[in-house]
């Protein structure tokens, strides 16, 4: 029986100040029956003129299963989430609106989840 089965879980949260939504999605794909590939999706959305608008959406693909599994086991820590809300989002805010790919920021997120 196949060890790898496709699955995706998304959790969207309204932050306590009611002005920002953060969406964390984990997408598990399978290269074959035994090889996982995880996509972690980060979406930052700000309240602008009464409506939530996407500033930047980034996706990081993690091919290293042991690190992905360790992340899944422990979950994101407060310091990692803070970093996502701090330096990464500060950098993300400076990206042009509608940016979907930014290697430098993607590397930062990958560094966080691979800690």
């Amino acid at each position, binding site marked *: *029986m*196949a060890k790898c*089965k*496709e*699955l*995706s*879980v*998304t*959790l*969207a*949260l*309204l*932050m*306590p*100040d*009611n002005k920002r*939504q*953060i*969406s*964390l*999605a*984990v*997408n*598990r*794909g*399978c*290269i*074959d*029956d035994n090889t996982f*590939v995880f*996509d972690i*999706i980060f*979406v930052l*959305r700000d309240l602008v003129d009464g409506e*939530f608008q*996407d500033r930047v*959406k980034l*996706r990081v693909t993690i091919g290293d299963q042991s690190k992905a*599994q*360790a*992340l*899944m*086991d*422990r*979950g*994101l*820590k*407060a*310091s*990692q*989430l*803070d*970093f996502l*809300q*701090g*330096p990464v989002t*500060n950098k993300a805010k*400076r990206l042009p609106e509608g940016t979907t790919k930014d290697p430098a920021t993607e590397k930062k997120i990958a560094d966080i989840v691979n800690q």
Partner: protein
Amino acid sequence: MRLLVLAGIIAMMIVLHGHAEASCPESLDALSTFTVRDVRIATPLTLRSKAANRLFFGSLGHTLAALESSLAIRPGQPFTRAAYDAAQLQITNVLGEANLRTRERVRLTLVIPAVEDCTVDSVVVIYRVYSTDAFSYLANILEFSPTTITQDLVPPGARSARGHVIAPLLGYDASRGLFGGSRATVQTNSPVFSKLGAAFAGSARGAAADVHATGERDIGARFLEHGEWQLNYRYRSEPIADIDPNLRSTTVAARFIGTTRAATAGPIVFRYGSTVEAGRRQSDLGQPSEPYASVKAYVGSSFGPRTIQGAASYGVEVGKALHASELGFVKHVVDLRLTQRLLARAHVPIQLESAFNAGWIQSTLTRIPVAERFYGGNAPPEFVGADSWKIQDGPRLRSFPQHAFNRADGGDTFGATRFLSGNFTFAPTVWHYPAVPDELLDDPQLRSALAFQLSSTKEAFVSDCAVRTTEFNDVVSRVGAVTDVLRELTTWRMHLHSIPLPDPVAAALADLDAAGDTLQNAVATVLRHPPNAAAFPRARLLTSDDEDLSPLLQAAVASEALAGALEATSLASEAVPVRQSARALRTASMSLGSVFAPVQALNTANPDSYQGVVQDLPSLRMTLEALSRELMTITAVHAEEVALLFETAGAHLTDTFRKLSAAEAPNSPAEIYDDLESLMTDWGRVAPSSPRSLIESVHRLQDALVAANLAAAARRLDAPLQELERAFVRIADRLRNIRRPALQSCAFGEAAFAVRVADAAFRELNIFQLSPAWVLDIARLTSDTGTSGARVGSGPGLRLSIATVDVTVAYVFNLRRRPDERRGAFFFSLDVTDLFR
């Protein structure tokens, strides 16, 4: 009967997506020679009409339907795993981008792809999307009160940008007959009244009208988390079964309702409010129309987790004739409600609802307007008259039509001065169609993914908890000192912008502007009052000594670069204040270096506390190894169910070994806590810890082995399983006795809501649910001239639940019937079960 038609339409239109039984290869790798015959995105609630889908379930269903035709995997093309996975990722991207609705704080979505209906050379690909979205929406659109005419049936598709709404209303009840009307709401930009509304309903026997202006605001204070205020005009002409004259009232009211912050220790909220009202009460029942005025005050609380929810309210009203100098009456009402939802196994709840109500009026009967006396039936009056808070203002006796239980002494006097009533409804589920298939709940990888999300959610609340501590107040005070440095920085930045600059200097100044703005924002965020969660990460960064993280140091570096650029030109004198600012920024950074440590300490576990637990881990490993050996001896796995459970147990065993290994490894102090929590934390019953999941799955495997005539194999698992249970319980007890870091304890409490939501969405929520119901009511009216005695109504019914909406129909017999009374009455109710509380 109201909304019954709507419920019926929904029920008829919903398509249940069954799981195809056609056999497909277990491995998708074996499908490389197959062609894709069809591709579908299916949600548990799907309507045949796309327009209806959008109307009832909003934009998410619409968006997914639109995505179907643009997926990477398409009909007619060869099946490839890459396209199959890419399409899933497309759906995940859309879900990740989807906005939360108004009043929706959390959304959990699961996508499970599958290949089904395989023929010799083709397959159908289905992406099943399970989301809390549609259900929280359904709960929001339906009104709670069966006695008011409001109906907040406002799908997003019907809203304009400002939320102007016109909604029709059609309904039926025994006293009013068939009635119809409309409701209109207009959102405004006013900070005082954000919503203006009007509603009317009429029938051959009566009429009702409401006009109101409503405002609300999240205040954020401990004793006033949320405030709601309303000005309201209300007219009622309500028919009474078997009596010709109507009860008539005209009321103008001003109302305020405040809510305290939910306690972190348990889901309990206190509410309080007051209404000042004036108007006329007239009845055509022997008392002339009389102007009156009254003041109402009410307090209460709602409490309990989802399985046992309760609410307790007390209200007092002081009323008098408008021109009289003395008080006319003082009315007291008490309302206690308890709803139990027992979940012996997933998706099969047993519901027990009970209510106890009492009221008494201090006055002489003649001074009390008829409409203010106590009377009841299957839809008793409301005391507050607000959608957000219901306090019953009379006895509920469902064997009588609306307002028909109104005689205390058997004479002609309408209404009473005291009442008591108790109501019970019992409804065990006998059939259900779950929102998330039962078999998915046992999927080890789904449990792992849910645990990841819930654990991350918990950590997100650490910031909220941190900014409420006294230690963080000290950080805020110290950060406040940076404002002087910032002021200097801003002064000479403005000066430099006012003079001509060579390009290299202008570029360096632009970099400093960016760094300065970031620093300014960070400081302003930390100093904001009241503090919010964003202050915590900003404070952490401001106090960091890492140049890649600290906005202070980044501004210092940018200042130094600018000074260097200035010194390389003829503007060297301008570099002096820039260098001074750079030094001041670095000094400020150093002065903040240690101030964050006390806050950090609140989130740091003491590793010594966990040594006993760590030393006990080898015993857990031994029991796991013993269980693993016994599982390996089970080789004759032919029955499909046994094979599936065997695989599930194996997966949980692997997870447990992996997490145990992480906990046993030499770790940093922070990692010891994290790894033990990863191994042992139960995220509700939807994502229990790996050892607990393993224990559950082996128990089920034993049952399946016995059913497959493999009892001997099942018995061999007894001893290692019992050893594992003992070791797990022992370690769990040890962990429970260790106090978590303060911020972690707080964050677990705050995240309990998300855990309950996940638990309800996955384990409890049914798309359809059918339950027989039994109703029992006892009520008594009393006045100075006599009493009705204890009246009893009881009878059978049926409850159909559509997601979180319960429609109950029953015939309640009048068990102590008097000669002039009806045999009983039909009872209809439409309630929303607040699963996501």
